[in-house]
């Protein structure tokens, strides 16, 4: 499909968009924390893919190339919306042990529903720096291996590992701050 697209097959491009748009959307959504913004980024991303297809030399690296374009558009979108914004929502701190929520895998999971869980994790991720958040999203949600994460982030492998580790520790701290014990 990718090869046909690179050869100029318009139908192949349509199939490609339908195949990848959900993944691009979820990458942008987790990065930006806003679904409407993520939808805009999806549109901009595929427009860029359409225009710059000739820049892709290796069809096998399409996934990392696509995710890199997506992240570039996410950063541009974030700068356009509010250049000084560093946190999507400020984390509400709770005293340790008081009104503590739990994300433990209880059988009924009746303490939190999935929307609340999603919202808490989203807040914890948005409290990270862009680099740490990007590393976590690419590894934990987009299914890239460590080398691919380094390639998308355009950094050495050791740097990608470091960002991933510190990102995970950051999420742990943020979840504790908002009163969640995993």
């Amino acid at each position: 499909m990718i090869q046909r697209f690179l050869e100029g097959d318009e139908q192949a491009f349509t199939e490609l968009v339908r195949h990848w748009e959900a993944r691009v959307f979820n990458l942008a959504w987790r990065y930006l924390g806003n679904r409407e913004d993520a939808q805009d980024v999806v549109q901009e991303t595929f427009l860029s893919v359409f225009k710059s297809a000739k820049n892709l030399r290796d069809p096998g690296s399409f996934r990392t190339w696509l995710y890199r374009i997506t992240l570039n558009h996410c950063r541009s979108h974030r700068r356009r919306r509010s250049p000084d914004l560093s946190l999507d929502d400020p984390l509400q701190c709770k005293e340790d042990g008081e009104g503590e929520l739990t994300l433990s895998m209880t059988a009924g999971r009746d303490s939190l529903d999935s929307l609340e869980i999603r919202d808490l994790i989203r807040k914890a991720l948005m409290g990270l720096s862009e680099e740490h958040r990007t590393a976590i999203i690419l590894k934990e949600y987009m299914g890239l291996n460590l080398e691919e994460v380094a390639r998308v982030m355009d950094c050495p492998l050791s740097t990608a590992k470091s960002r991933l580790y510190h990102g995970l520790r950051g999420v742990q701290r943020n979840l504790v701050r908002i009163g969640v014990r995993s």
Partner: protein
Amino acid sequence: MKCDEIKERFVELLYQEQGTPSASPELQAHIRSCPACQRELAGLKELQATLKLWGDEPPLRPTVIPRPEPALGRILFPFWRVVRYPAIAALVTLAFLGLSNAQIRWNRDGFSFTTGLRPQAVQASYYTKEEMKEILENVMNISRQDNFQMMQYMLGTLDSAHATELRAITRQIKESRSRN
């Protein structure tokens, strides 16, 4: 091996991926012997499971598929990029010539280029003294010529009328003498 030195390498144990070098024996040995690092590693694994609770969702709406430009556009666009500035300059020049009522003449007398941008000299609605004098002289000349011709005609008319009258009188005298 100290705890702080190896913590960033925990990801090697978290993500035991195919094709990547496995965690070094020293790292594994340290983990086995360090309860703090064991707890931290366990916490990170649990966190990974927690993160998975945020599942994927579908996009809000289908993506609009970009379409290529029409073939004619693809052909003309490079050509337009080359000629656009000269074409714009030519249009501006023609517009200027049209709006300024430009006239370009090239004949035996030479080449001239004039525009209507400079205000024309307003012609006076009255005659100057010299002009009036000239006009009157012309009128007088014409009049003098006309008067002379008129007088000549009148005299000629009178002469002929006088001659006719004289002949009539002479005839009357002759007739009266013959009767007597």
